[in-house]
């Protein structure tokens, strides 16, 4: 039980216009800002947790990652974000959104911090049947400086750069930053090659169908009968209808409608079932790529942080922003986002995160590679201008 060990920090409504935020029970409407540029979003849905670490309000924080809700905010806020393997961390205590995709993730201002946090929250939990009994290694054992003294500390590591993640729809600035990060990995001794995941673009629609379907079901319990908003009503159906109409936000209602539709008789095969088939294909194609490579890399998001309100009326554009991350959730794999450079924007540039994807339950390798990558990236300092002076002194 992740929150049994730690207090959840700032998790929730992160100014992503509620994209992955159920916002039931009348959640607040205040928007968290990005510490790098307060006119921009911190990402979502766990943007609050990312912004808090970015602004050095806390050392580490937790978030939930269903389709990228830890990794995209980490990238936007210039912090480390870690999405563990599905089942590595208990979901007990997490308000379920999409049960088969939800994972508790970690934020830290360094890979080591995120790794220490992961170690604290990992392991089997008898209150979560989907939590794994896989042994939890000591993730912190690799955070030594010895390997850093070698000239090629990552010698022999096979890295696959996912070709589809640098094609159309990705900001050129982001793409070139990622290529720069790729070069840095090569300098560290990695052999980097491009790898194609042909099913990559299928992941997004499959994700939205599955996540909406599961959330339409998981949100059924918010019916006003036992807790939360209960609208005054004379009849049972009105009590349900009014309580839910008042309690849920617009985006959540849309998700419930989409999910209910996808699971309805006559549509199940065309939507839910096909999405499950796509999920199997995605899982297999990752497996094949990871048989050939130790880790795969890609951007964590197709762009850096955008302006608050910018995509408010364009849900499809907002959904498209999840393309880099959702496949990883479908495959249940671990992924680590490490700040790797900047693109133009704000007063000091906007951070860009590199996503490293590993084989199931191989967080250890990701943390080791991430740590070396981070410690050797000497030209960059990921402290937001807002607090740069405080941190420097």
């Amino acid at each position, binding site marked *: 039980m992740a929150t049994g060990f730690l207090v959840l920090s700032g998790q929730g409504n992160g100014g992503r216009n509620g994209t992955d935020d159920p916002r039931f029970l009348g959640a607040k409407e205040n928007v968290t800002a990005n510490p790098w540029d307060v006119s921009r979003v911190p990402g979502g849905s766990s943007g609050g947790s990312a912004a808090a670490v970015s602004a050095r309000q806390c050392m580490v924080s937790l978030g939930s990652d269903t389709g990228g809700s830890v990794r995209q905010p980490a990238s936007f806020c210039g912090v480390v974000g870690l999405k563990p393997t599905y089942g590595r961390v208990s*979901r*007990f*205590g*997490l*308000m*379920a959104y*999409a*049960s*088969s995709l939800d994972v508790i993730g970690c934020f830290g201002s360094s890979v080591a911090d995120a790794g220490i946090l992961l170690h604290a929250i990992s392991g089997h939990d*008898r*209150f*979560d*049947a*989907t939590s794994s009994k896989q042994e939890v290694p000591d993730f912190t054992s690799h955070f030594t400086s010895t390997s850093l003294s070698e000239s090629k500390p990552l010698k022999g590591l096979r890295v696959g750069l996912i070709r589809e993640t640098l094609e159309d729809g990705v900001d050129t600035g982001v793409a070139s930053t990622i290529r720069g990060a790729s070069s840095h990995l090569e300098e560290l001794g990695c052999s980097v090659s491009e790898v194609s995941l042909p099913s990559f673009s299928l992941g997004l629609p499959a994700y939205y169908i599955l996540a909406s*379907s*599961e959330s339409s*079901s998981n*949100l*059924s*319990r*918010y*019916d006003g*009968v*036992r*807790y939360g908003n209960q609208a005054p009503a004379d009849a*049972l159906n009105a009590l*349900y209808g009014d309580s839910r109409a008042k309690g849920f936000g617009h985006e959540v209602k849309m998700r419930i409608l989409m999910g*209910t539709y996808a*699971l*309805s*008789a006559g549509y*199940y095969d065309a939507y*839910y079932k096909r999405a499950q088939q796509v999920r199997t294909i995605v899982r297999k194609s990752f497996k094949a790529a990871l048989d050939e490579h130790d880790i795969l890399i890609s951007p964590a998001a197709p762009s850096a942080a955008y302006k608050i309100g910018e995509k408010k009326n364009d849900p499809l554009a907002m959904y498209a922003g999840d393309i880099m991350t959702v496949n990883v959730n479908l495959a249940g794999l671990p992924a680590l986002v490490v700040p790797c450079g900047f693109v133009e924007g704000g007063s000091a540039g906007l951070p860009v995160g590199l996503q490293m994807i590993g084989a199931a339950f191989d967080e250890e390798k990701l943390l080791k590679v991430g740590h070396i990558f981070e410690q050797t990236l000497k030209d960059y300092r990921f402290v937001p201008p807002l607090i740069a002076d405080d941190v420097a002194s």
Partner: protein
Amino acid sequence: MKSTQSQTATQEKPASPEVKNTLSHPANFKTIDEKILKDYEAVIGIETHVQLSTLTKAFCSCAYSYGTPPNTTVCPVCMGLPGALPVLNSKVIEFALKLGLALNCKLSLNSKFDRKQYFYPDLPKGYQISQFDVPIASGGYIDVDLPVEFGGGHRRFGITRVHMEEDAGKLMHSESGSFSEVDLNRAGVPLLEIVSEPDMRTGIEAAEYGAELQRLVRYLGVSNGNMQEGSLRCDVNVSIRPIGQSKFGTKVEIKNVNSFSAVSRAIDFEISRQALLYSQGREDEIVQETRQWEEGVQKTVTMRKKEGLADYRYFPEPDLPGVTLTQEYVDNVCSSLPELPETKRRRYENMGLSMQDVLFLTNDIDVAEFLDATIANGAEVKLAANWIMGDIAAYLKNEKLTIREVKLTPQELSELIGSIKGGTISGKIGKQIADPAEIEKMIDKVLSENPKQLEQYRSGKTKLQGFFAGQIMKLSKGKANPGLLNKILLEKLNAKS
């Protein structure tokens, strides 16, 4: 008179109120039956829900027992609180396998749970964890022997499927009807749903199907099978069709049948109701609906009409991993099964017992095991059976005891039978006098015949109790129940008259 009335009724115009009167009067069907019923065949299928007697609920560690104060055996999991997750109680699988095997089903080594979604206040998550397209057991059958008094006969009914699911809570409606309260004690209690093939043709067959299922779950120890407490609930589907027609008629579901006798009577009523409508050319008035059995007036009444098929939006439960069973595990469960009622019946039959006796003796597994143990100790089958069905059964009934609660062991019974058979004691002596009135009479006699000793006793020589007891025992030729004798004797001796 009645027959004339019903004759008239069938000739009445369909819409006339008199016909409705006749329809609502069950007594009239009895006479209509004979003439009309022979032209129709009923098709009956039963869905049964059996509450499993696991120590804890299906997906949490709450205990459940019937009748506890509302909302006292609940936790975040069975209340459906946010953040709580279901974890399967492995006993549920074991019990499901036991019943699946006992019903001769094919087992799914790989099955899963699904969510069945609908809104209702007794369903806290907004979905019920159930099994949809891959039930744990399917394609089996159940053998029954119909009661001799109903003509007897052996039947085999198909079992479509057995699946695992969780029970819902209960709504308690206020007397004013202005509000309802929710009790979630029952929410999350494990159930097995057993769906039969539409193989039954009469109320008696359906009742016996239910009774055999009850016997099975009790033999297996997976449920107490108690219908009054709702541990075993039957929903009956009935349709009729003219004999010779292969197409099924419109089926009607009957709920609220709380005993097997009610199952039988409700079905017979429903068959008559439908047959009458058919015979009057009004079969279009038989609509797909749920009817409720009203015990008070002995008839079924409309509960709700079906409006299209409900869409439960089933999908695989993502909070629970798939259920994977090894053949080894299944074999282990299989080898742990007791001898089942059908096998026992055939065995007892082959031992020369009458069907009447066989049905009596196999009805309760404890009785059957008592018989088996008595025979194993050397007693002759028929003598052992007679003792158990006769004096022992009568004693149990009188004392409101179960056979497990009596002090007599099968070995003692066997020795007793042996002694009687060997002529050591007579059959009459074997039986105790346990009638308090009879014993009292003997005590009174002994007391009145020994006034001197009685006076001595009452002045303090209480040791004389033994003397009186001996005299009374002698008078009863050793047959008086000693416990009863001493109890009544003491009362009499100590009474200040």
